[in-house]
């Protein structure tokens, strides 16, 4: 049962750990690494030693992060190949080895020869102009990115690198996990737990459903042994020691890397106000432990209710992570607008600030679109969010993109004043507080205001002479 991690440690530590395990063996039931769960299927005859498998999800994370690099290169066919192709030889452009942070895999095929297009949310994307479905939005953005220098269209303030990346994290990873695996696939009649997921598989239906959902979140399998700061450093490729859980000198993209929304969760949690990352991974772990205990029997209604309760913890926290990102980038967009206005007033060169404005708005838009593809009807919140942000950032001359014409060209119309759009960003932040109860509140533009109101509120206000 001891893996390399234990044998690699000095003897005194093993002694301490062993005695700790002996003393608390009963409370040690919950594992803290999402790996090596046993095969529960009695009839399994293959060579696998564990029932855990979610390589396809990690391949999609690698495709998404590689695509992010490709957008700025302007080669549409390369973008399409990563988005919808099937070649195993596609190189993993990111994350790539950086100094001592050595990445184990170099091609997509070493993980799994998947693509993103088949798993992109097929519904309408109302927050993007042109009445397009998810895959159509992606194809449209690829074309536009190829036309723009380095994937950046300064005239419309569109940063396609950010737009595509953040949209895909929502339309593929988030949508697949919360609207498919953690939703209809938890029902009794789909992928039951007393049968293999498919013929010859080492895992039951529900075991694999749960594992795939875990993979889409993008957290390292040993997240619960790490702090949020560690996971953040792993995503930034700054801490190989934290990443390399099995001490083989390489970072395994399958099990040891941090991707996607797990990275964003860590970025908020490291501030100390939230615990999204550990709450989500903890719920995945609890659900998986429950499935091991079910031992390949069909889940009872109460067991499925329990599993759905874990799924709900994951969904709620995941949604909050995206809402925190919307909050953060609305704040950064606002700050960019303050800077741009000041530069314009002093007749300075606005191009660098404009680049940042486009980047932050692209992230804001991407996350805002992502928030709306979780499979639940957000009703008025969705409408309000899309109207406040609009189809593009506010452009100089107080216009905004309002649509796409039949040739696929953007249509601009008169819109808000500069200050009016800044107020929209404030309202986006308020909306995230009101509807999703965000807590980390990065780049909060009204931070301290509530406290000031409180401090004045109580003062002798009713006293009169």
């Amino acid at each position, binding site marked *: 049962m001891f893996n390399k991690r234990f044998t690699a440690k000095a003897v005194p530590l093993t002694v301490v750990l062993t005695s700790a395990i002996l003393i608390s063996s009963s409370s040690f039931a919950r594992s803290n690494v999402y790996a090596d769960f046993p095969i529960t299927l009695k009839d399994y005859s293959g060579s696998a030693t564990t029932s855990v498998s979610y390589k396809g999800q990690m391949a999609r994370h690698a495709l998404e992060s590689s695509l992010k690099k490709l957008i700025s290169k302007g080669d549409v066919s390369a973008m399409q190949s990563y988005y919808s192709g099937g070649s195993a030889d596609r190189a993993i452009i990111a994350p790539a080895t950086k100094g001592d942070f050595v990445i184990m895999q170099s091609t997509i095929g070493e993980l799994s020869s998947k693509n993103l297009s088949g798993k992109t949310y097929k519904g309408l994307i109302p927050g993007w102009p042109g009445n397009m479905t998810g895959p159509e939005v992606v194809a449209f953005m690829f074309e536009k990115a190829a036309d723009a220098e380095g994937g950046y269209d300064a005239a419309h303030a569109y940063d396609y690198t950010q737009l595509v990346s953040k949209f895909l994290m929502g339309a593929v990873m988030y949508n697949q996990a919360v609207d498919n695996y953690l939703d209809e696939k938890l029902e009794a009649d789909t992928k039951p737990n007393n049968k293999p997921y498919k013929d010859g598989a080492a895992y039951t239906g529900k075991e694999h459903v749960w594992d795939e959902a875990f993979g889409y979140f993008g957290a390292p399998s040993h997240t619960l042994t790490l702090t949020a700061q560690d996971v953040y450093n792993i995503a930034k490729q700054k801490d190989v020691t934290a990443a390399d859980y099995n001490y083989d000198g390489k970072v395994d993209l399958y099990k040891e890397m941090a991707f996607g929304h797990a990275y964003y969760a860590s970025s908020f949690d490291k501030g100390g106000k939230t615990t999204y990352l550990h709450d989500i991974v903890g719920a995945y772990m609890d659900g998986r432990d429950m499935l091991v205990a079910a031992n390949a029997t069909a889940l009872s209604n109460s067991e499925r209710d329990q599993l759905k309760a874990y799924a709900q913890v994951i969904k709620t926290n995941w949604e909050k992570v995206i809402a925190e990102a919307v909050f953060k980038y609305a704040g950064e967009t606002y700050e960019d607008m*303050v*800077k741009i*206005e*000041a530069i314009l*007033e002093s007749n300075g060169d606005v191009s660098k600030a404009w680049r940042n404005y486009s980047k932050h708005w692209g992230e804001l838009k991407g996350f805002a679109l992502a928030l709306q593809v979780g499979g639940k009807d957000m009703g008025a919140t969705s409408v309000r969010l899309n109207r406040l942000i609009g189809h593009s950032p506010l452009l100089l001359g107080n216009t905004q993109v309002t649509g796409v014409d039949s040739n696929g060209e953007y249509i601009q119309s008169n819109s808000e*004043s*500069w*200050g*009016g759009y*800044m*107020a929209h960003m*404030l*309202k986006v932040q*308020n909306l995230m507080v009101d509807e999703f109860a965000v807590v980390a509140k990065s780049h909060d533009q*009204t*931070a*301290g*205001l*509530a406290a*000031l*109101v409180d*401090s*004045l*509120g*109580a*003062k*002798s*206000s*009713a*006293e*009169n*002479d």
Partner: protein
Amino acid sequence: MTDFFANFLNPEKRLFVGYLISAAFIAIIWIRMVQKKPLANIVSGFFNSNIWFSKSAIADYKLMVFNQFFIKLLAPILVGQLALTLFVFENMHLLFSRPSTSIPVWMVMLIFTSVLFILDDFSRYLLHRLMHRIPLLWRFHKAHHSATNLTPLTVLRTHPIEAVLFSLRAVIVHSLCLGVCFFFFAGSVSLIEIFGSSMFVVIFHSLGSNLRHSHVNLSYWNWLEKIIVSPAQHQIHHSINPKHYDSNFGAILAIWDNLGDSCIVSEKNQEIKFGLKGQSEKAHNLKNLIIGS
């Protein structure tokens, strides 16, 4: 009941024990040095049961207790304050551009504390003036003016509706002031505080604000009384004499009264009777104070 005691333990409130003690000291010095009365008379004057247990004072206490229950209903008004502040802050964006250069924090604090003080004081003056001038409002404010003896506790002899109006005033003024200052100075906005209360308010209360509701007619030089309301001037405001009617509405600053032609400065050895002309003894019944006669 904790709210009731908070009146005496909270330096934000006029009835904070520290302010009562400082007022007592100021009164002793004033009566001894200026009016040259013997110390024994002064001390016995402080504990004069004819004042503290007069019908008027007992009415103060009854209304105070009654308002403790009523004041709980004010909580939702304060909740609305954040929403209103945000509304002001957001709408400032439509009128001005957000400054990107920052001024020193101490200067922001000084500006904010001063602006809040001036706006707060002006709005008190204005509402107080309206309480007298608008017949409907006077029906509520009358409860305060029916006091025939003044003690520091008379400040709480207020009709509950008046308390609501003054709370609304505070919400509007605070929201405006915060929303506007936050727009221009962002995170550096804060109040210069002493004991957790605005510097100006603490200074005002420490300098004997409690004496305005008392029989100690502490006055200032007449030139100063055109700038700051002295206790004697506020006692004129409570006078039964028609020539004193509708004067000295100010809370701290007399400037507003001076501009509004309602400033009356004190006279040496003024003898003032407090209350409303022709009021009956019944005016001190709780029912009359609240519903009117």
